């Protein structure tokens, strides 16, 4: 104990020398903020939090921690939903919020270079006047950082058409777990060799720390149309989703909110005038050339009516569009008000399985006596069943966990998977064997060992146990 305290004191002193005393937090009160991310059921306070302000400081911090064999992880805004940005082994958190400069904007090559602490929406705002945007738009985009987006391969409603973070990152500067700095990917041109960039994105902070990110900028579409279709039942809304996809229409977003979600939203500050008597609504957005958008919107309206829509509202102007989206993006916040805790689940199924799987998910929740609301990216089959609960009630927590396991098993059984955009983190490690064999997981562990042979970088996440097979 005594020896441990002494050792701790020595590396903390070294960290203070690098970033300054006030930028190393060790007071348990201050550390409380960092004990969990957006998923409150996994709580692990770190040993310390440091605030580096440059890549060079990240390198020095990582090297000190490596020398003392102290585990560490990077954290952005802490909005993640898988327990990924928490220190499970009493490690140190490198909080990157201060590395928040946009370093370069190059419209000619449609790219921007940013530090990892830049907030997602700030980048889009910085390039909006020039007619561009940054496409991946997680619901937390007003708070989440691009470094966190890279770690999680973040998605969002518009990734149905535009793709995930991995499709919009062109290059990275990364501090490896041993403190060495490398460049992955190109900087607008193709890189040579294995696709380490693609491998790194979505590695949930276990392969190293990105300190500089080159992203693609996308031109704003000529036209955008947002529709709200309201249905008596989730089944009708699900069939409509399948019919739109089958018709060869690729909306930029295709979102579903069920009655429980609508009620929560309408009772909150995010109220968007959604029909509270509907069984489900679809928020459908089409963008692109005006000629296509008009044409496809007409077909979508037809498909909605053919599948039982009571009304299809077409937003008349940007204000109306913004209001509809505020309702969607505020859904998690609105649901969070209902109960002390909210389990935001994430799973993916083949999109044609929606009509069959959704009712089954409601049945699971009912069987465990849980209050559930579904608000999700229906167009790509990415479900977000949300369970409102009270973390102080051990029996309810147990029921939440058991229901989640059943939902995961169901999704895997129909050909789906555990997570579409939130990551495995801590929360889904136990389910990994549902989708991957021992050999699959072992191959993943081998890649992890290439990046982090010492196992110090965000340990305890993604893979069930440390395993590595010798050939």
């Amino acid at each position, binding site marked *: 104990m005594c020896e441990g305290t002494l050792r701790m004191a020595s590396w903390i002193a070294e960290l203070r020398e690098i970033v300054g005393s006030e930028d190393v937090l060790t007071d348990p009160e201050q550390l409380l903020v960092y004990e969990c991310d957006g998923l409150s059921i996994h709580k692990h306070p770190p040993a310390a939090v440091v605030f580096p302000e440059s890549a060079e400081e990240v390198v020095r911090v990582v090297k000190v921690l490596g020398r003392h064999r102290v585990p560490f992880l990077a954290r952005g805004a802490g909005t993640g939903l898988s327990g990924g940005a928490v220190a499970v082994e009493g490690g140190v958190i490198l909080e990157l919020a201060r590395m928040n400069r946009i370093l370069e904007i190059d419209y000619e090559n449609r790219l921007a270079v940013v530090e990892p602490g830049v907030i997602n929406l700030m980048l889009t705002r910085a390039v909006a006047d020039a007619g561009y945007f940054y496409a991946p738009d997680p619901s937390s985009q007003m708070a989440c950082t691009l470094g966190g987006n890279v770690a999680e391969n973040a998605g969002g409603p518009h990734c149905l058409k535009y793709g995930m973070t991995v499709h919009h990152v062109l290059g990275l500067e990364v501090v490896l777990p041993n403190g060495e700095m490398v460049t992955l990917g190109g900087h*607008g041109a193709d890189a040579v060799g*294995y696709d380490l960039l*693609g491998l790194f994105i979505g590695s949930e902070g276990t392969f190293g720390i990105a300190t500089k990110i080159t992203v693609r900028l996308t031109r704003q579409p000529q036209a955008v149309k947002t529709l709200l279709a309201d249905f008596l039942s989730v089944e009708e809304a699900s069939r409509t989703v399948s019919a739109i996809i089958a018709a060869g229409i690729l909306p930029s977003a295709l979102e579903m909110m069920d009655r429980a979600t609508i009620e929560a939203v309408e009772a909150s500050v995010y109220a968007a005038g959604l029909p509270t008597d509907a069984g489900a609504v679809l928020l459908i957005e089409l963008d692109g050339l005006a*000629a296509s958008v008009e044409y496809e919107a007409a077909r979508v309206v037809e498909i909605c009516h053919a599948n039982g829509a009571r009304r299809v509202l077409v937003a008349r102007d940007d204000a109306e569009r913004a209001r509809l989206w505020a309702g969607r993006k505020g859904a998690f916040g609105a649901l969070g008000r209902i109960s002390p805790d909210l389990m935001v689940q994430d799973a*993916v199924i083949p999109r044609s399985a929606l009509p069959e799987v959704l009712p089954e998910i409601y049945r699971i929740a009912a069987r465990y006596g849980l209050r559930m609301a579904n608000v999700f990216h229906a167009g790509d*089959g990415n479900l977000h069943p949300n369970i409102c609960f009270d973390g102080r009630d051990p029996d309810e927590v147990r029921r939440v966990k058991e229901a989640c396991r059943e939902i995961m098993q169901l999704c895997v059984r129909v050909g789906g998977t555990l997570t579409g955009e939130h990551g495995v983190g801590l929360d889904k490690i136990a389910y990994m064997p549902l989708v991957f064999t021992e050999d699959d997981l072992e191959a993943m562990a081998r890649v992890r060992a290439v990046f982090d042979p010492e196992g110090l970088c965000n340990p305890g996440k993604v893979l069930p146990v440390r395993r590595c097979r010798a050939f």
Partner: protein
Amino acid sequence: MTPQPENAVERDVIAIVGEANVLSPAPETYAVDDRRPLAVVFPGTSEEVAAILRLAHARELAVVPIGSGRRLSLGNLPERVDLLLSMRRMDRVVDYEPADLTVSVEAGCSLDAFNRIAAAHRQWLPFDPPDADRATLGGLVAADDFGPLRHGYGRPRDSVIGLEVVQADGTRIRTGGRVVKNVTGYDLNKLFVGSFGTLGVITRVNFKLRPLPEAEATLILFGAAWEPLASGARQILHSELLPAALLLADEGAMSPLGHERKALLVRFLETAPAVAYQVERARAFARALSLPVEELSNEASRSLWTTLTRLHRLLPSDLQLRLSVLPAHTLEAVRAGERALGERLAPRYLLAHPGTGIVLIGGRLILEDERGLSSVAQELLRLRATWEAQRGSLLIEQAPPEIKRHIDVWGNVGSSLPLMQALKRAFDPKRILSPGRFVVGL
């Protein structure tokens, strides 16, 4: 490697796949650069692939996996080649779900064959690599190969959602899955896509598909010089238009199409009203630049692009380069390529993608003697150094062995080289998968 009695190897592979599925000795057409393999093996299942790799791993036989062999010229000179593992017999569409816009195919399934099936459901895989009509989907993915459609649809990397891979020791793994959005565990798809068969043998690929566009048209803008064509391309790129492909072509590339001038080819794949709108807008750009145009719609447009994917069959070539630069540097790279190789190739063709910064130059080398080859190699190294200094790269897609002896065809890997070497050690410790052919001879 311990020397193998050739007939023992032959006997063992026959025991796995049957006599009808082994060619031994390998015919000349299966040579990898200047090396002839002991045998060409045609497994019919991933179990057979696994058995072959277990054998190769135990005996340390070098295995080069191939699809159609369309891109076999791409790579450094092989260190050794014992078995060529052709995936051609594994050509089934295993599971096609039109309602989900996903498919699972065996690696030897051809791009054309699948797209014919998918067309009935108004869907497709939007890839147009060189020699697209010969491409197998496994080969396409292993090479992450692309053509002009990369501009609008990305590379195969962006459409792969899952793989089955047989590792060097014969263990089979699956990566990714069958759904279009997935962050479950590490994305090992990315490890194998574009790894040219040096980390494992891809036996099955899952793709997400695209709806087949309702209409198509191509507008060709003709010019005597690059400047106005590049300017047209730039205007289109900075406009609201959404071309699926945008290609600059020199006189050589245009000659098989019956044209004698340079051109900018703009392909639109969209709904009918959006195609019509875009063609009109592109025509207006051309008028402002005083460039004559020709418009091709639907079948004529498709056939034009098909011809372009076959250029190097139509124009005999033994050298092909791919420069990748920042998109804004495309014109400069075109000129640098012409300066470096203009006089050394006849016939010659040049294609450039101003939206993605890709410049392809190919043709037949004019050589007086052996010294000529080494001076070409020097020229290529100079060109590479120039562009690597500007964040670009130069890949030599095809070259005679005499040039490959002087030059690494891939170029500089940069600071991530130790990671790549460690990955190779972790996935192929005995170096039996295409040894020597990938970057820095991995």
